[in-house]
């Protein structure tokens, strides 16, 4: 049986892991490689690295980070941040990333999703959607690390990226991100009902019950967790045992 995935998320800025609150006011938390090794050994199912300071000038830093991570762990990992072209994707994959996550550029140039899925296969193309609630069951897509509104409806956008060939959606609620008040269940539920590709729920995990709820009520395939793990409030084994005891399939 396919298991639900627990995915630690490492927000990287200038080579360090940080965790933002509402994408602003970043706090420095530590070294990426030590987190990667630690989580891999602790039973993480996957890892996500989001380089929130990514620019073309800093690409060497990202490549080095990717190679270093790939040499040290034997679980899959996704890299995102600053991807502009199919060539950028190739470089990340060639350096050892298993998947890439595209956010801003997918909105600016949706063709990149189609082209890269065709070339590398859908399974390695993740589209990250940052959504902000605008009304009852409506959310708007934001880009540029949650700073810029696009006027695009998140539900329609999710459907569109699926059609373009995305293999997975990394869905972040801007409203709940960093608040530890729980995932946006209604957003997750509506997106998982809309698309047939896996959805990773992100933003707002504050307790073990929050994880359970978004997997069951939101029907997410995976949960992305940052602070709860980085600050050792919860351990991966503890999360998985909790889920297993409630009949959620997990890899233990």
């Amino acid at each position, binding site marked *: *049986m*396919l*298991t*639900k*995935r627990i995915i630690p998320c490492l927000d990287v800025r200038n080579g360090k892991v940080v965790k933002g609150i509402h994408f602003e006011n970043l706090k420095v938390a530590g070294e990426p490689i030590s987190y990667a090794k630690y989580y*891999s050994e602790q039973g993480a*199912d*996957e890892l996500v690295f989001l380089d929130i300071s990514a620019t073309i000038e800093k690409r060497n830093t990202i490549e080095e980070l990717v*190679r270093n991570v*790939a*040499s040290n762990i*034997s*679980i*899959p990992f996704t890299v995102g941040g600053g991807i502009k072209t199919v060539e950028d994707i*190739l470089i990340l*994959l*060639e*350096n*050892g*990333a*298993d*998947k890439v996550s595209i956010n801003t550029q997918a909105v600016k140039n949706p063709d990149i999703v189609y082209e890269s*899925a*065709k*070339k*590398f*296969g*859908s*399974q*390695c193309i993740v589209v990250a959607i940052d959504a902000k609630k605008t009304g009852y069951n409506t959310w708007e897509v934001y880009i540029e690390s949650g700073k810029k509104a696009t006027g695009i409806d998140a539900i329609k956008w999710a459907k569109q990226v699926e059609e373009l060939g995305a*293999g*997975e959606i990394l869905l972040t609620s801007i409203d709940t991100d960093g608040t530890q008040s729980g995932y946006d269940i209604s957003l997750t539920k509506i997106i998982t009902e809309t698309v*047939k*590709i*896996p*959805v990773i729920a992100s933003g707002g995990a504050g307790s073990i019950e929050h994880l359970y709820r978004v997997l069951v009520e939101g029907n997410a*395939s*995976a949960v992305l967790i940052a602070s709860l793990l980085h600050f050792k409030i919860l351990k991966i084994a503890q999360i998985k045992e909790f889920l297993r005891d409630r009949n959620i399939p997990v*890899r233990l």
Partner: protein
Amino acid sequence: MTGIINYGAGNIFSVMNTIERLDEKTLIISEPEQLSKVHRIILPGVGAFDEAMQYLKNHEFVDKLKEEMKKGKPILGICLGLQTFFEKSEEGKLDGLKLLRGCVKKFPERKGYVIPHMGWNSVKILVESDFVGGVPNKSFFYFAHSYYPVPEEANFICGTTEYGLEFASIVQKENLIGVQFHPEKSASCGLIFLENFIKMR
């Protein structure tokens, strides 16, 4: 030495790196002449079916791979690599390598089963062999695919996985082996498979 065929479409670093961590030398193969220099060959699981087949055809790998297979050289196909062994795939228009009879199909749409089949799922081992030796039955492996192999010759199916239907996740015909999951991404259990493979002669 183990050769890894590079189709130029993604992550072969992980396979190379994992093999090297097992103290085995690797050679990244981009021309068919290099195949005779290595003791065993890996077709990694990156890219899309037609892109990979186009590369293998353009670089005249097809006949050379068949020759190496007949000579008895161990060949391991991972994910898409395994899928290229068959005659056809619903993912593409081009013919496969035709090393095995059968085809590759897309997962049907079913409620509760998202596609791609992405994440950790268990493998039921049907046939014991040197390749699967030491891997506990029903261990978890990492999968990431929308298409699955349907071998015509059922006796070559050595392991299966359930995802709305039961599909072949380990296939072996003598020295030709294919796995639908990614052993290089499947933590300690995946390493056992790769360790077994590099012992094969």
